[in-house]
Structure formats: structure tokens, C-alpha cells
């Protein structure tokens, strides 16, 4: 999930990056565009400014021309008047309206008006030489001078002088409606006519660096053009400087005007352009986001579709599985019901027949039907168990329950079962077991057995001809990546090789998945839930083991399972094959059983059938059985009747088993205050045993109750003196459970064939064992046969001294490591022979030993 999320984030990031990039590009373009528009507008404005300057210059030029013209008029007057001084003077006076006119003779003496030196006013000299001119004398004023010709020669110089203070009154120019400042300067940049209405800051402005440079630029431009204008930044904002030549003089008209005045109205153009661009940009960005959104949506829908597909597929698989299961479950149920029907009919028929032979035949038929039922029932149970196991694993509630067990025992049971199955399919079954494998192990025997069974069953199931070979050994490591086996640990390697239909390469991965059965074409006819391997794998995972497959399609497969298990004792499995083969050939099994005709038990269950079944299961034991269908009823009975044992169903209406138990225990003057009560429950979740024990039950049995388990439980909890041990030597055809045997024996008893008398064992062994501190029952349970018990006991006593010596040695040497190992081993072996007390003591020593070793 996280991987996908990362991928999505990357994509989003990229999209976002792209959009951001586009925005940046647009912004850049926008800025450039704005600059460009402004530039163009500036250029336009400058052109306008030029024209303004030209116009103003023209105005001034005309004025100058006018001045000179006026003087020429006066001069021409002088030309005519010769020698008539007074007339000339009058004429001049008339013209001299403002008293500024003067006439000088050649030689500089005044004819009229003031005398001025040619040094101050070079225009006078110029006029003397015949050229009219204008000159400016700093601090004095502006003089216009023209020659007065007489014939070809110059007779006088006529001038008009405007004093400084009158200059801008006479020549002052305003531009831009009074907003601009205009000056008249000469080529040396001396101001001749200042601005109209100058303000205090004006001269400062003219001295600014940027302004000076601006006017220099204008001067340059004036060489090639009559006018020029340029925008400049000043301390008072952006200004447009302009200049123009005043025709007919050496003077320039210069000035400045604030840009805002010039640009009035024009800035809206640039604003408009920017606005349009901004709109476009916004559209682009918006489009971009829409696109992003769209992409995200399509991606989302694609993802949803994908997820839907996956879910669909899983759903389909589950539905198929359920359908399958329905079928699988229905089949044995049908068998059960059908067979039952058959049994009822047969027995009804049998009741009505007379002849012994017909009756025998009828019974045989009934028996075979019952076997069918049994088989179907077991099948059904196995399926349900599978499902239950699977659910537990799925829910994470599957837990291992490690305990001590004998490997050989497991191998024995498994091999017997498979041998039987293989035989019925005409397959060869071989077993090879490493002799040196330790026998006393600690682990979850049930699960180990389950795994082995599963693999072997598969091998048999999917092989139609040839052989199935079981190899059991040990390997250094449970799986490649695990550390080597710890001391006190063995890594079992169980390998099953068959010559079956094989597995295709591409199916190998699917094999371990739940619900999937591979190669359905060829395996359609083979029964099974398909959960087997999945459960096996999960169990192996929990046990720290591993499973490997090698297969050649059409030729066969080899399944190899490795399970690490803790070693508890030093015994080895020994020569398993011989024993097994012997067992196979003999097909005998030593099965312990018992009778307890003196015992009386109470069975409480609200379901009648269950009571019937239980009674049936125990019929061979000749135990007296009372039944009750409710807790209340049972309490009635327990008041008066002393029972040796009570089997109490847990789940009952009105009063649960636990409640009944408590009430029972609370019964004063009841006969059964201390009777062991065994809880019958279908509740097999973890911690159940502990819980029931905590509630006061002596023990518990899981439903449906297995005959062997039931017998074992009874043997455990019934008073020992009431138990009569037996063993049955000739149970035909492999190992059967006690139920089966009971029925057969029952059949034989009622049949014609007389059973050979069975030797009766009384409780002497038990008593004798108890005297020496041996729990015979326990020993029997662990070691199986009396023979084994004898053998083991002998072995134990023989090695006891030696072992004890070793322990004492290590104790003296304070070698706690070894001490603890030995003591631990002692605990185990003591328990095995039923020396419970010894075992307990050894356990204590082990504990302290652990502490000493610092574990």
C-alpha cells in the first residue's frame, strides 16, 4: 500500500512542478511584456516631447527673429537719415518703446542710448562687422545687435538690451500647460532665460547627476536633429527632459516636465495590456488545474477499478471455496444420513427375520454400514477441523502447545495410518528413519503429527501408482537463513517422495495459498478442502520450520519439511524400520484398554444422542453409566448417588456446566462433593484448559469425544482400584481407535465366534508401582506397553547410579551448565517412567540450576 502511495505522491509532485513551472514562465513573459509596453510608450512620449520642444523653440526663435527684425527696422531708418541727427534720434526714440534700444557709432561711441563694450557683448562686435547677433552677458542681460547699413558699409550698430530681470518676462516659455519648466540656454549651457515660475528645488534638480547626463545626451541628439527628448529618473520622480534648437541663434530651449504629466492617460494602455495578459495567464493556470484534476480523477478511477478487480477475484475464490466446501461437507453428511437410514432398515428387517444366518448377515451388513458412517463422520470432522484450524490461523489465535512427546510414537501412528491408506490404493509405502534421531522431544505433538499427516495424505491422494516414501532425519538448520540448531535442539527433516501426478512449475507458488487447488482438471476427483497445505505452511511458520517442494510434472513430487524441536532426553528413535515393519507384517497393535464394572459415572448432556453415543463408547468397559439431560437433573442425582466420575457437558440451557459444578461442590451432604468432574466442551480456544481447571473442573474433553481420549480420561480419573487393565492383541488391519475395536469386539462377542479369553490383570501392578513411587498409569501412557515399562525401568535403574554420580560431579565442580542439562534430562526420564515425585524434584533442581547458571 505504501508503495502505491509513494508513487501517487511522486506523480502529484510532478504535476505540481509542471504547473509551477508554467506559472513562472507566464509571469516572466508578463513582466517582459509589461517592460516592453512601457518602453514603447516611453519612446512614443519622447517623440511627443520632441515635438513640444520644437514648437516651443520655434516660438522663441520667432521671438528672437522679431527682436532682430524690429532692430533692423530701426537700422533701416538710420540708413536713410543722414546727418540729420535730430530726426534720426526722434525716429529711434519712437521705436524705443521700452528704453532698451541703443545705437552705437562705428568706433563704439554712443549715438543713442548707453554704451556697452564689445567684450561684454560680442554681438556688438559682430554687428560692427556686419552680422546681427545675440549675446548674453551673465548677470546683465541679453542683447540683440544689428548693423545699420549705409550703402554697402556699416554705419551704426543698433542694439536692444534686455536686462536680466526682464528676460523671462519677455521670453519665458511655459510648456505642458504650466507643468513643465522651460529654459533658454546657450551652447555653453549658461541659462539665458530661466523657467517661468521657478521653484526652489529647480536648480537642485538641474545639478543632479542624472539630469546633467540627460542634457548631455540631448545635446548630442541635437547635432543630428533639431529637437530631442529623453526620460530620466530624478530625485523628484521620473522626468522627461527635452531640448530644441532655437533657429537663428546659438541658443537652445531646454526643459523638463514630470513624466506623470506627459503620460496622463497613456498609462491606461499599459494597464490594459497587462490586464489582458493576466486574464490569459489566469486562463492558462486554470486550465492547468483542471487538467491536473482530470488526471487525478482518471487515475483514481483506474485504481478503484483495479482494487475492485482484486476484490472481485478474491471474492470469486472465496465463493468457489464455499461452494466447494458446501459440497464437501454435504457429501459425508449425506453418507451419514443415508447409512443411518440403511442401518435402521436393516436392523428393523433383522428383528423380523428368524434365521441365525440371515441375522448374522444382517448384522454384518449393518456393521459395514456403520463403518461407512464412521468413515464419513471422520471425514466430516477432518474437514471441519481444517476449517476451524484455518480460521484460528487467520484470526491469529492459533497457538502451539508444546509438551513432551515421543517422536517414535508419532512416527508410528502416522506410518500406520498411511500404510493402511497406501495399501488400499495398491501403493508401496516405505519408511526410512535415522536411528540416531532423539526420541524424547518437546513440541506441539499434535501439530507435528498434523503436518506429517497432511503431507503424507497428499502424497497418497495424488499418487495413483507407484510408491510413497517417508524419510525422517535431521539437518543442521531449520531453514537456510536460520542459525544452526541450538544445543538441546534437533532440526527434524521429514521428506515425502511420491511417484504421483506431480506439480507444474507455475502452480508451485499457488499451492500454498488458501482456497486454491491447483491442476483442478486432474485433481477434481480427489477430495479435500484445499486448505491442507496452507494450514501446514502456517503451522510450520509458527514452529519455525520450512517446507520445500520439488516436482516433475507427471513423474512425482518430493515435499521436504524441516521442524526444529527441543530435545528432552538422550534416547534415540532406534531402529524404527524393523519395528515398524514388524508391526506392519504382524498388523498387531498393542492397545491398552480397561474395564471398570465396579465404577459408576454420571454423564450430563442436554442432547440425548450424545448420551447414547457416550454410553455406546463405554459399553465395552462395563462401566455403569447414569445420564442426566440437565444440570438440575444431575444435581438431583448427585445428591443421592455417589459417582466415581462425572462427565459434564458445558453448554446446556438453563444451567451451564460450570454453574452445575459450583452448585455440586456446594452441595452439603451430597455424595459427590469431591467427585472428579470432567468438562465436555467444544470450546477449544487457547487457555481453555486453564480456565476450566480454574473454574473447578478436574479436566476436560473436547467434543466430539474420541473413544481413545475418553478411555484415557477415565483411566486417568477413575479410582485406580476400580480399573481393570487389558490389552487387545489381535485388532486386524492396522491401527484402529478403541471405538472401532469396541464395536468389533462387541460384534464378536454377540456373534458366534468366541473370543479367546483375555488374561485379566488386576490392579496389582498399579499398587506395586505406586509403592515404589511409580505412577503406573503415567508410565503406561508414555511408554505404551508393559514390556516397554519393564525395559525402561530396568534401563533407568541401571543407569541411575551413574547418572546421579554425574550430577553430583557437576554440582561439586559448580558446572551449572551441565548440571542443569543432566537434571533436566532426569526430570524428563523420571516422568516417563511414571516417577512423578522424582521428576518434580528434578524440576526444582533444574530451576535452581538455571538461576545459578545465570539464565
Amino acid at each position, binding site marked *: 500500500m505504501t508503495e502505491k502511495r509513494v508513487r501517487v505522491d511522486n506523480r502529484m509532485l510532478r504535476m505540481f512542478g509542471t504547473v509551477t513551472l508554467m506559472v513562472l514562465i507566464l509571469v516572466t513573459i508578463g513582466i517582459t511584456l509589461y517592460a*516592453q509596453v512601457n518602453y514603447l510608450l516611453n519612446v512614443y512620449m519622447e517623440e511627443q516631447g520632441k515635438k513640444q520642444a520644437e514648437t516651443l523653440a520655434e516660438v522663441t526663435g520667432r521671438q528672437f527673429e522679431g527682436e532682430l527684425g524690429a532692430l533692423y527696422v530701426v537700422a533701416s531708418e538710420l540708413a536713410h537719415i543722414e546727418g540729420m541727427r535730430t530726426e534720426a534720434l526722434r525716429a529711434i526714440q519712437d521705436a524705443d518703446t521700452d528704453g532698451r534700444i541703443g545705437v552705437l557709432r562705428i568706433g563704439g561711441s554712443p549715438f543713442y542710448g548707453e554704451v556697452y563694450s564689445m567684450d561684454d557683448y560680442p554681438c556688438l562686435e559682430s554687428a560692427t562687422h*556686419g552680422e546681427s547677433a545675440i549675446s548674453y552677458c551673465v548677470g546683465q542681460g541679453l542683447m540683440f545687435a544689428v548693423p545699420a547699413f549705409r550703402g554697402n558699409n556699416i554705419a551704426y550698430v543698433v542694439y536692444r538690451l534686455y536686462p536680466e530681470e526682464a528676460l523671462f518676462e519677455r521670453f519665458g516659455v511655459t510648456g505642458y500647460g504650466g507643468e513643465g519648466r522651460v529654459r533658454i540656454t546657450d551652447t555653453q549651457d549658461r541659462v539665458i532665460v530661466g523657467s517661468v515660475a521657478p521653484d526652489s528645488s529647480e536648480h537642485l534638480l538641474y545639478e543632479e547627476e542624472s539630469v546633467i547626463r540627460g542634457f548631455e545626451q540631448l*545635446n548630442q541628439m541635437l547635432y543630428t536633429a533639431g529637437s530631442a527628448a529623453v526620460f530620466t529618473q530624478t530625485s523628484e520622480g521620473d522626468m522627461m527632459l527635452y531640448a530644441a534648437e532655437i533657429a537663428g541663434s546659438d541658443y537652445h530651449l531646454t526643459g523638463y516636465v514630470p513624466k506623470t504629466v506627459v503620460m496622463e492617460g497613456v498609462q491606461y494602455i499599459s494597464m490594459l495590456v497587462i490586464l489582458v495578459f493576466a486574464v490569459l495567464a489566469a486562463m492558462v493556470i486554470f486550465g492547468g488545474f483542471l487538467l491536473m484534476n482530470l488526471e487525478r480523477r482518471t487515475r483514481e478511477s483506474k485504481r478503484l477499478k483495479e482494487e475492485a478487480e482484486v476484490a472481485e477475484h478474491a471474492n470469486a475464490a472465496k465463493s468457489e471455496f464455499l461452494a466447494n466446501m458446501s459440497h464437501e461437507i454435504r457429501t459425508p453428511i449425506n453418507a451419514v444420513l443415508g447409512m443411518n437410514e440403511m442401518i435402521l432398515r436393516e436392523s428393523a428387517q433383522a428383528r423380523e427375520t428368524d434365521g441365525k444366518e440371515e441375522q448374522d448377515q444382517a448384522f454384518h451388513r449393518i456393521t459395514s454400514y456403520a463403518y461407512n458412517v464412521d468413515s464419513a463422520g471422520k471425514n466430516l470432522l477432518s474437514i471441519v477441523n481444517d476449517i476451524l484450524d484455518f480460521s484460528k490461523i487467520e484470526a491469529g489465535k492459533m497457538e502451539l502447545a508444546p509438551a513432551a512427546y515421543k517422536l517414535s510414537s508419532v512416527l508410528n501412528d502416522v506410518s500406520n495410518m498411511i500404510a493402511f491408506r497406501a495399501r488400499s490404493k495398491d501403493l508401496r509405502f516405505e519408511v526410512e528413519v535415522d536411528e540416531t534421531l532423539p526420541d524424547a522431544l518437546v513440541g506441539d505433538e499434535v501439530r507435528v503429527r498434523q503436518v506429517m499427516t497432511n503431507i503424507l495424505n497428499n502424497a497418497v491422494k495424488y499418487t495413483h501408482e507407484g510408491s510413497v516414501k517417508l524419510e525422517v532425519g535431521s539437518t543442521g538448520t531449520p531453514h537456510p537463513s536460520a542459525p544452526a540448531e541450538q544445543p538441546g535442539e534437533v532440526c527434524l527433516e521429514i521428506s515425502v517422495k511420491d511417484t504421483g501426478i506431480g506439480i507444474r512449475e507455475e502452480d508451485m507458488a499457488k499451492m500454498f495459498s488458501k482456497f486454491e487447488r491447483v491442476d483442478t482438471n486432474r485433481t477434481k476427483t480427489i477430495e479435500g478442502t484445499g486448505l491442507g497445505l496452507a494450514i501446514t505452511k502456517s503451522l510450520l511458520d509458527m514452529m519455525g520450520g520450512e517446507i520445500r517442494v520439488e516436482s516433475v510434472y507427471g513423474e512425482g513430487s518430493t515435499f521436504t519439511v524441516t521442524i526444529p524441536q527441543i530435545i528432552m532426553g538422550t534416547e534415540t528413535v532406534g531402529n524404527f524400520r524393523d519395528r515398524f515393519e514388524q508391526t506392519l507384517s504382524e498388523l498387531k497393535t498393542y492397545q491398552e484398554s480397561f474395564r471398570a464394572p465396579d465404577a459408576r459415572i454420571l454423564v450430563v448432556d442436554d442432547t440425548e444422542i450424545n448420551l447414547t453415543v457416550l454410553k455406546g463408547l463405554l459399553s465395552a468397559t462395563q462401566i455403569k453409566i447414569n445420564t442426566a439431560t440437565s444440570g438440575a437433573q444431575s444435581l438431583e442425582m448427585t445428591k443421592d448417588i455417589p459417582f466415581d466420575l462425572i462427565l459434564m457437558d458445558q453448554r446446556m440451557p438453563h444451567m451451564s456446566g460450570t454453574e452445575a459444578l459450583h452448585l455440586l461442590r456446594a452441595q452439603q451432604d451430597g455424595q459427590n462433593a469431591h467427585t472428579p468432574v470432567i468438562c465436555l466442551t467444544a470450546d477449544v480456544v487457547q487457555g481453555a484448559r486453564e480456565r476450566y481447571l480454574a473454574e473447578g473442573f478436574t479436566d476436560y474433553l473436547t467434543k466430539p469425544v474420541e473413544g481413545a481420549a475418553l478411555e484415557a480420561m477415565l483411566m486417568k480419573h477413575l479410582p485406580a482400584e476400580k480399573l481393570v487393565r487389558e490389552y487387545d492383541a489381535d485388532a486386524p488391519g492396522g491401527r484402529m481407535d478403541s471405538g472401532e475395536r469396541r464395536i468389533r469386539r462387541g460384534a464378536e462377542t454377540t456373534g458366534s465366534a468366541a473370543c479367546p479369553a483375555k488374561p485379566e490383570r488386576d490392579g496389582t501392578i498399579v499398587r506395586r508401582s505406586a509403592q515404589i513411587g511409580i505412577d503406573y498409569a503415567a508410565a503406561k501412557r508414555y511408554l505404551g506397553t508393559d514390556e516397554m515399562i519393564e525395559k525402561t525401568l530396568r534401563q533407568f535403574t541401571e543407569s541411575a547410579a551413574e547418572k546421579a554420580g554425574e550430577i553430583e560431579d557437576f554440582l561439586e565442580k559448580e558446572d551449572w551448565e551441565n548440571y542443569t542439562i543432566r537434571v533436566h534430562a532426569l526430570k524428563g526420564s523420571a516422568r516417563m517412567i511414571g516417577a512423578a515425585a522424582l521428576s518434580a524434584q528434578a524440576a526444582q533442581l533444574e530451576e535452581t540450576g538455571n538461576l545459578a547458571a545465570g539464565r
Partner: protein
Amino acid sequence: MKKAFLILLAIIVAIAGGTLLIRQRLRADEETQRETRIAVILNGSRDDRSYSQSFYDAMQSYADITGTDVVFRDGISPELFEETVRPLLEEGYWIIIGDHYGYEPYLASLTEAWPESYYLIATGTEASVNHSSFLGRVYQARFLSGIVAGKRTVTGEIGYIIAMPTPETIRQVNAFTIGVRKVNPEAKVHVRFSGDWNDDEKAREATKALLDTHEIDVLSLHVNSLAPLYEGDARGIYLIGNNYDNRELFPKTYLTACVFHWEDFLAERISECERHKFTGRHYWESIKTGTVSLAPLTGNVYFATGDEVEHWRRQILEGEFDVFYGPVTDNYGTVRVREGENLPDDELLYNMHWYVDGVVVE
């Protein structure tokens, strides 16, 4: 969808980009201060001890003082002007000073091709956007030199060798004569033409002829050649030079000379060029600015000449007097300028074809 979007973006980019291309060519960019490089084109040679040398001296001293890059080209006749100047312009010389009016017609093509170049043509009469012409009012110096001559002469016969009659030469000999007559009302100025500005042989011939014909005891000239001076000196005749002060050559006979001091004037013009304040016009520098002047009088002058000269100089400087202030009569007796009148510059420059009273043209 994405494609459409990208296309839209591309269009916007294209439009924006297109607008950026609309750019008016900026005229007259910021002008960086460029190094001043001057080329001086001389019609004569830089060591002719005469007119051309006066330019050479002026500009060389300018170069020495300011460290400006100044190059000279000698002996460039007007026809050679363009081909001489073009490579210089290409090299990066942008102020061209020429000493001959004959160069003026050749300026047009150059100013067009190199609009950033400036031309200062001496003795020229035209002016345009980047071309100024200038003269000194030599006639004023001539006038003063005439006073010297008038005071010196004993015989009352003064010789004057002229290359050829032009308003310029006529004007100057007129001024000279006016000066002579101011202090020596009866003296005569005998004029002879050599026919060439630079030809020594022709000048000598003319001088010989003149001196042989009259009892001349003071000689002046208006040619570039120095031959007349040598000739006069050989005969022990007092000399008044022109263009250049050559008193070392003629220690016994040299009186004074009309000389040029171009430095200040040219420096000012050059400065105007550098400051982009060039104005194309015609300059006629008067004696006031010192561009033209009379060389200091030698010991050979008549005593008290100095005071006289000074007196008249002062008059001119103060504007009370100029050479052609009236009355002026020509040598035919016609009153050309009445009392209280003045000849306008135009007349002086273009129309002086008459000689003043006292000039005798051979």
C-alpha cells in the same frame, strides 16, 4: 487534453515573444567618452617656417602638453585630401584639422560616412554640422606691421610680394598700406605677384624685379616661400615676415612678422568637440584673442615704433578702431568707406578687389 493546453501556452509565448521584437532602434546610444585622436593635414610642410609650420607648431605643442594622439600629414594638396584622410578616419582619428581652403569641397563624402568626425579647416569659408572654418583677422596684424614699415622706411618705397591676387591677399596688403599711411602719409607700397604660393624661384624672380625697379628699403610678403626674404636680406633691405617669426634667419634686417598662435583657438575647438558642444560655423579671430598677432619688434625697428604700434593695438582692442573704419579711399580716389562707417565682413572676405590709396600694383 494536455496537448491542447501546451499548444495554448505555446501561442501565448509566441505572442509575447513577438511583441518583444517590436523595438525601435535607439539612435545615439550612450556615448562613451572616446579617446581624442587628431589628424592635421598640411598643404605645405611642417618645417616650412611658414604657414603650415604654424599649425604644426601649434598642434605639436598641444600634443606635448595634453598627451593627445596627434598625427601630421605634410604636402597634401587638395586633390589628395580625401585619400589621405579616409584611412585616418578608419584608424579612429575623428578630429581633422586642415590648413587649406581647398580641402573644403572634399568634406561632404567624409562627413557622411563618418558622422561622428569633426573638421576644422583654416582659411576656409564654409561651415556645416560638423565642419567649421576659421581665419584670423590677419589684416589687423598687417595693419600694425604697416605701421612698423611706415616708420622704418626712409625712401618711402615699400615692397610687397604676393602669390596671387585674392580678396585675402588684397585685403592684407590694403591693411598693410593703411597702416603705413597712418604714420607715413606719402609712402607707397609696390606690389608684385609671384604667381605661386610656394614656388621659391618665382618668388625670387618677382622680388628681384621689384627691388630692381624701385628704391625699396622695407619688404613684406604674402607667399609661403621665404625666397623674397632671402633676396631682400641679401640686399640689406628691412623685412617684415608673415606666418612665422623667422628673425633668426635675418638678424640684421628682420623687423617683425604677422604670426599665428593657433593653440588656444584650436584647443578650445577641440574641447568643444570632446564635450559634444561643437557648433559648425565660421570663425574670424581677431587680434583680441591672440590668434593672430604681430611678433615682438626686433631691434631693427625705428625707435618709438613700439609705442605707436601699441597705441593702435589698443584702439583695435577696445573697438574704437578697426582697420577699415572710415574714411578709406581706394587707389583710384574713390571713397570706399566714409567716416563713421565700416566695411562689413562680407565685403572684406569676398569683395575686396580694390586697392587702397598708396598701393601700386606692378
